[in-house]
């Protein structure tokens, strides 16, 4: 009956589709386009009710529009609550840790992530929507960060990039165990930072300056984007979209950084030349990702690429015209180009629609 539904997001999509079909059937009946027989109507309603009930029981999905709106509120509240609780834990520790001896400090910081991990597991077993588990997982990650940071501070250890690896792996394990996309994003962030930092150390540079070589992130962003092609996600079917979005975002930010600060590039040569090359790379790559996203129906990739296309275009026009063009003319031209882009996208949309109908 659940048609092979593996994850909560798949189940929610299915529930949404059933609700939409129900609404559309009612609309078709009202307009006299299609009227089901009593038997067909009864059969469909029975199927829809049974399926929605099963999906709600197995995955605790939203089966009505009102529930969906409340769920969004729950997600926002649990994220903000998680962040607030993280701040509370860190500040509480900071306020009182100086009054206890070193062995007690060490024991407390080591036990905190384990205790919050236990709390996360307990919450996940009790509640299928995982709002509380998500909140506690965030706290567990904060405690893990506090653990290593506090040990380093207490014993005056020279900072090392390897803490980023530990935090990234911890976040990754939590993300995959509980299906938490925010944790996956954090894991990707930590692991990319660790990889770049390790490369810096290899070259005799300080790991803290891992953001100084954006080219690391240009390559790693593409690798993260391509990860779902290699890693098959049978259980967490919503994770590939996270990898794609995170990868493309990292790639675009790195290219934008090089387009504005070419001095941070590995390539020798004039800074201005490097900046111009990366600017055009940004424009071409955003267009490429838009085309790829449309073909593969990756809405997030299309929207993000479109936003960065506008940013790269604005940057290029700014460098060409800002210094010599009157401001009102500059913004007028920007507005005109935006209108042209809208017309171009409308034409593209119409072309795609004709292609689909053919």
């Amino acid at each position, binding site marked *: 009956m659940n048609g092979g539904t593996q994850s909560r997001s798949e189940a929610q999509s299915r529930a949404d589709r059933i609700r939409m079909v129900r609404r559309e059937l009612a609309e078709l009946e009202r307009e006299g386009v299609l009227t089901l027989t009593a038997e067909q109507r009864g059969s469909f309603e029975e199927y829809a009710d049974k399926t929605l009930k099963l999906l709600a029981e197995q995955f605790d999905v939203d089966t009505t529009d009102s529930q969906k709106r409340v769920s969004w509120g729950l997600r926002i509240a649990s994220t903000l609550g998680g962040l607030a609780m993280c701040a509370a834990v860190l*500040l509480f520790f*900071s*306020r*009182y*840790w*100086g*009054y*206890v*001896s*070193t062995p007690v400090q*060490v024991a407390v910081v*080591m036990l905190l*992530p*384990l205790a919050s*991990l236990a709390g996360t*597991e307990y919450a*996940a*077993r009790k509640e299928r929507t995982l709002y509380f588990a998500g909140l506690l997982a965030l706290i567990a990650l904060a405690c*893990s960060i506090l*653990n*290593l940071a506090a*040990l*380093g*501070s*207490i*014993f*005056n*250890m*020279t*900072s090392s990039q*390897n*803490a980023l690896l*530990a935090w990234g*792996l*911890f976040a990754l*394990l*939590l993300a*995959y*165990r509980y299906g938490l996309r925010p944790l996956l994003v954090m894991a990707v962030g930590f692991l990319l930072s660790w990889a770049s930092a390790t490369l*810096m*150390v290899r070259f*005799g*540079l*300080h790991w*803290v*300056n891992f953001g*100084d*070589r954006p080219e690391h992130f240009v390559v790693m962003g593409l690798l993260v984007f391509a990860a779902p092609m290699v890693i098959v996600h049978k259980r967490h079917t919503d994770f590939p979209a996270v990898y794609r979005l995170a990868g493309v975002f990292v790639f675009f930010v790195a290219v934008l950084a090089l387009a504005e600060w070419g*001095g*941070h590039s590995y390539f020798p040569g004039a*800074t201005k030349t490097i900046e111009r090359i990366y600017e055009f790379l940004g424009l071409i790559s955003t267009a490429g990702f838009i085309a790829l996203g449309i073909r593969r129906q990756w809405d997030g990739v299309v929207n993000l690429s479109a936003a960065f296309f506008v940013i790269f275009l604005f940057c290029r026009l700014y460098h060409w015209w800002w210094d010599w063009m009157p401001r009102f003319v500059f913004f007028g031209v920007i507005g005109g180009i935006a209108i042209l882009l809208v017309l171009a996208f409308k034409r593209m949309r119409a072309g795609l629609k004709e292609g689909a109908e053919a």
Partner: protein
Amino acid sequence: MRKLTSLFAAVALVLIANAFALVHIARNRAGQATQEITLTDRELQYYRDSDDSGVRLQLQYSSLSHDWTGLTWLDRKQVCSLGFDCSVEPGDPRAYDFYLRQRPRTAFVAFEYDGPAWQKAFTALQDPNRLENERRASRLLPIDAAPDAAQLRGGYAGRTNVIILPAIVRIQSDPAYPAQLNRPARPARISAFLVQIPSNIHVPKPYSDGFRAMTQTSRSEKSETPLYRVTLRYGQFLEPWVAEVEFPH
């Protein structure tokens, strides 16, 4: 019920990360300390924070190492030995951009405490305001740097007022300056700056109780007596710990 593999992996990760850290700490403090030095409130500053009950001292070094009058603590050969590319002459028009593009590098720096280098830089000061400030400021001055700590330590063996610390060094090229009224001429040069040194030093109990009990955290202007003297010991990885604290008042 979910399989427990990933849960056990997360627990194991926490335990392994902590084990690595504790083994590192034990190895740093194993055997005899590699160096020991006693510093005062001029070099180790204490800032009280109402939201943080821990006591941390900030290690400060003298700003006399960055004097524009031409006193440099690393010459070009030493800068090149740290791994920087010094192929462009400092007077070359391309020099500024060339050296700006080079990222800061890790190195080991020798700091001399209240030694001849600081005395020379201090007596060379002519600005009375700067003189007054330096009278109360740190006497820890960077005097040398090398890519290898053992190599650097060998050059200062037996000098109890010299400590070797890991640091981040960056370089820039300075243009030539002609002679002026109160400044001698200075040729174009490559300057080395310390971007960062490990400056936060945690003070454990029971020493931290003494700091929390202090009624003032900075010395009064006329006083020559330090608020405290702290003896630091450094281990195999040049990571310090507080061995002793004395409060003269």
